[in-house]
């Protein structure tokens, strides 16, 4: 059993260039503090998020994945955040079918003005995942190189349950 006291979760966060990445910038400029467990990746839009990225992160040792985008109706590319939402819901359903706790994959809308909100969401997510404990997908056989097989497996599992 992992010592919960000393477990530091690693979270990969995907941000949108137009809103949430700037919210992270704003959190910085305003010196809003949040735990250092999240490592951010900049995409042009939450619509760019290929579900494979999430699987890759989880299979590569991340304990959770944070997906962020513009609020509904505020997408820089008109409506692509809705597509991100659709993918997120499908992906989370698939991941839950594979036995993953839903809290490990989180979707947050954060506008460029919401640095405080983003910091707060990160803080909450880190606390939740700390409570869940490590994911250990990596130790249990999913490696970055078969993330696609995991995806295939997940799709198959989804078809069976549907």
């Amino acid at each position, binding site marked *: 059993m992992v010592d919960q006291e000393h477990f530091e979760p690693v979270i990969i966060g995907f941000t949108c260039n137009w809103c949430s990445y700037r919210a992270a910038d704003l*959190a910085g400029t305003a010196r809003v503090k949040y735990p*250092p467990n999240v*490592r951010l990746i900049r*995409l042009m839009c939450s619509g760019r998020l*290929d579900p494979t990225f999430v699987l890759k*992160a989880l299979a590569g040792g*991340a304990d959770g994945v944070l997906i962020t985008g513009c609020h509904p109706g505020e997408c820089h590319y008109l409506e692509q955040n809705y597509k991100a939402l659709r993918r997120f819901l499908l992906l989370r359903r698939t991941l839950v079918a594979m036995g993953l706790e839903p809290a490990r994959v989180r979707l947050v809308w954060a506008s460029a003005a919401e640095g405080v909100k983003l910091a707060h969401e990160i803080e909450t997510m880190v606390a939740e995942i700390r409570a869940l404990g490590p994911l250990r997908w990596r130790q249990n056989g999913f490696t970055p190189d078969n993330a696609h097989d995991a995806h295939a497996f997940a799709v198959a599992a989804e078809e069976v349950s549907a």
Partner: protein
Amino acid sequence: MTTQPQDPAQPKEKIGVYVCHCGSNIAGIVDVAEVREWAGQRLAGRGVTVARDYKFMCSSLGQELIEKDIKEQGLNRVVVAACSPHLHEGTFRTACGRAGLNPYLCELVSIREQVSWVHTDKHAATDKAKAVVSGGVERVRHHTPLEPLRVAIHPATLVVGGGIAGIQAALELADAGKKVYLVEREPSIGGHMAQFDKTFPTLDCAACILTPRMVSAGNHPNITLLTWSEVTEVHGYVGNFTVKIKQRARHVKTELCTGCGICQEKCPKKVIDDVYEAGLGYRKAVYTPFPQAVPKYPVIDVENCTYFRKGTCRACEKLCPTGAIDFAQKDEVLTVQVGNIILATGFDLFNPQKVTQYGYGRLANVFTSLEFERLTNAAGPTNGAIVLRDGKTVPKSVGIIHCVGSRDRNFNNYCSAICCMQSLKFAHLVKERTGATVYNFYIDIRTTAKAYDEFYQRVLEEGTLFVRGRVAEVTDAARLPGEEGKLILQVEDTLAGKQRRIPVDMVVLSAGLQPRADAKATAQVFGLSCSADGWFIEKHPKLDPVATMTEGVFIAGCISGPKDIPASVAQGSAAAARVLSTIDKGEITLEPVRASINATQCSGCRICNTLCPFGAISFLEADRVSEVNPALCQGCGTCVAACPAGAISGTGFSNDQILSQIEGLLMLNMEYA
């Protein structure tokens, strides 16, 4: 799709890693020397051949460091760990370009906004900085040389809002020979400034300085003035926006109307004017807001016009000497092409009715600042006489309350910037015109701009009384002798350290400014964002105050926060200058982030076809494959993520780049090295 580890002995990439101290901004939390040393040693197998740390990478010496290494060490990739790419990505790309390296082979990773400024544990922050650098190194390995996209700029500009900021922007552009569409939703341009009598601190007459500008804007051959109009839709991107403007029916044929005013004179329907007269005066159902309105043509307010309501009257039609009245006129939608947009939609006055203890709306002689502006205006409902609500009694004492709805955690936390000076101006006007005793109730006096404090000194010398303290209540309940029939201000005088009750005849609430009630809807039309307060967000609060995050859309005046007239005018000019620079260049360069489809991999499933909101993807029936039109593609990457065959790639944000960055951030590369 995943990164294949390369032979560590022969990495083809030669990567330079530069860790910035940013003075103590980064170095105070992150052990930059340790990050540099770690990157140089542990990432050597991943192609890092040079690792340095430096006090200020963005300084010319820091940039020269990179340039020198590119030239002397043959670097072909650069990772700078410093501030946000939104601040200095351009700086380091340019530096690489100067040294002969394609600028897009440089990656800036943020260890300031995302590490040192948001974390407190030095050890954890240093570890995170290493992971962030590692992610950048893995990502940069998959960067490819790119060329920026060039977009032609349509030479016309849309200016939304005909207040002083919008007028200034429109005139600057028009005087430079560029075509401008100036859209205003009221029947006349002029904005709030047209309501004022005097402007602080010079006390020059607002109309005398504003109306010539309005006339110039109205007559300018390069300005198409669209009043009584609103922008409903905006499509396209910088350089080529397609804008739909709804022009409401004036019910007056402008080609026939001479602006003689007979219709307004003869119209039997009086309506309280909530906009221009701030509810203090009347207008007719057919009206121009004020005599100097530009354009001079009136509009018929169909909600109040007797003909539109009851089907009879038509007095204006019968009496118009040129037959310009047209009850059958319909709203029109205009479509225009522009290259840039300037938004100058201004502010709303805070509604002081929300501060119930000040009694506005309940106590007759409590006025808002805008009402008071109209009272003092020579062209206003009282012809400039400062009188009580009864229209004749001259007050013997006046209390002016500052910061109503501003600097108040119950309403707006921000300072409205203009209220101190406005209140001082009111105090001066009351003294000058009535000789009444004037009390100013203030929290702090903020007189920061040119000649403002001198004006404050002048008002002090004129004998205006200043009480430091936030007024608790305005009441008409007399308790003490001498309070009967007065408004009593209950206030803690924080300088004297005691409670005071001050009876006055008139109270003026210096209400703050707040964002337009429909600011959020406006933001959505133009694809912008507002802060939590509702003010529009500038691209950078200090270095780019009139640009927005959307290329080609600029903001000026109070749309981004409370401002006085000089600041609004300066921003109008500044926004125009920004637009002019792109028009004169004829083109603008954009990030080369675009999707493209590999025809040999495309299975023709057409999943991507419906995902693109810009219609950039079409299906080639002959070849049974889809194709991206790069001129329409905006680079969001949604189709890239959706392609089941992996046939679509997105420059700058390819699967390889992102997947490798994930590996780097998770330090999986440690196992390859």
